[in-house]
């Protein structure tokens, strides 16, 4: 399937109607990552209560799979503890999306990285307080 370039139905659903789009004012954690490969940019905002991700939002500049993976990773992280959310990997995101074309796997990396960056940011802030 190395030549596959088309997207799964699931990817298209998330691309056309992405979940959790937007910003959170005064977020507890914020992560922004850029993809040095293709130039995509993704940012994730989280609201945390009792170590659980209570609210999560994203904004993405990028291709269909970048938008779909942002939508999916925010769905997956919502309601999870920070520990659980940190365990979400790029492969988990791709699997939930019923696969990504091989060339697009780096997009799911970006989504997982943005989530992890937001959680790290939250933890840094906690240390300072």
């Amino acid at each position: 399937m190395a030549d596959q370039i088309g997207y799964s139905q699931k990817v298209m659903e998330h691309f056309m109607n992405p979940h959790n789009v937007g910003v959170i004012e005064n977020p507890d954690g914020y992560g922004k990552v850029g993809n040095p490969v293709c130039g995509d940019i993704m940012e994730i905002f989280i609201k945390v209560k009792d170590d659980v991700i209570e609210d999560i939002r994203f904004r993405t500049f990028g291709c269909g799979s970048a938008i779909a993976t942002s939508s999916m990773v925010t769905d997956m992280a919502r309601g999870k503890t920070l520990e659980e959310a940190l365990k979400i990997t790029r492969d988990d995101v791709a699997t939930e999306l019923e696969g990504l074309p091989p060339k697009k796997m780096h997009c799911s990396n970006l989504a997982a990285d943005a989530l992890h960056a937001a959680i790290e940011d939250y933890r840094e802030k906690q240390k300072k307080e």
Partner: protein
Amino acid sequence: MEERIYLDHAAAMPVHPGVARFCRQFPDGFAGNPSTIYREGLQAQEAVATARERVAALVGTSAPDSIIFTSGATESNNIAIRGAALRNRKFGKRVVASATEHISVLNPAKDIQKGGFALTLAPVDRFGTIDLDALAAAVTPGTVITSIHHANNEIGTIQPIREVSAIVHEQGGLLHVDATDAAGRIPIDVERDGIDLLTLSGNQLGGPDGVGALYIRPGVRVQPVLVGGGQERGLRPGTENVFAIACMGEAARLAGEEMAGESKRLAAIRDRLIAGITGIEEAYLTGHPEERLPHHASFRFSRIEGESIQLAMDMLGIAVATGSACTSRTLEASHVLLAIGLAHAEAHGSMVATLGRRNNMDEVPRIVGAVGETVKRLRAITPL
């Protein structure tokens, strides 16, 4: 379900209905091998000869033998660059190409560097027009071949080929012109324009895929890239693809006949499309505003990415192209958009619409509406 609107004719064209009618006359193809002398062979030979005359007529040469048939524009470009450079290496070992050439010109030009050739890429201005002063500086006395496309497939800009030709020939080298996107859309005359080698694609004329042609000015020496039997003057060995060649010939004939009217019709649609789409906030035309192909409209949109534009448009029933890094095999930004001076992020948000005979003026409002809706939706998601 609304009808699909296809706007990626630079990538692939439907076969012209007149060509399809022509092809249907030969439901079993051609039985004979054109290298044989019995009746079936002679019929095949005649079909190829007729096609050669028709392609020759389209590009303004009275010497049909100056046309060889290939498997497409990529092969033609390879034979032109490699074949002419290697055969004439005693003249000099420098190759010049514009920075916005198609990859099937740039890659053979880069590849022969391994054989000791030096490559100079000549810059273009912000509209994609070749910088003639820079070209004059790049073309040195030892420049064996210079390759400048007639028009660009991503931004539609038409090059001043006659001026280019004067510069190249002043130093005595050869001029190759990739006319894949221009042929059948704007008049080409290899005599008047001073072209030594010219690449044509069968599909871009409205013919089938898998066939192309290369014009080689009589007297210009080229060595083959493939070796085998002596077909096509030894430059393209292998039994001729007779059926595809015959159909390409018919496509060339029809293209020549219909070009003036069809180009005028498409240019009117193009202009309406450009007016509508550049009316969208932070939407810009790429390429030259006037010196552009009649069927070609190309844009960039700030703060959004091209592949997602392409996908969203597809969902709205419209097929468009993009030069976005996300859609390229290498994930690199379009070398054409970088060459006209766009930043990487700007090159990311490109959209190309290339028109064909099935498109009409009535489609314009729906296209402009779909682009507007897509841009608005994607901008609502963007962090930029």
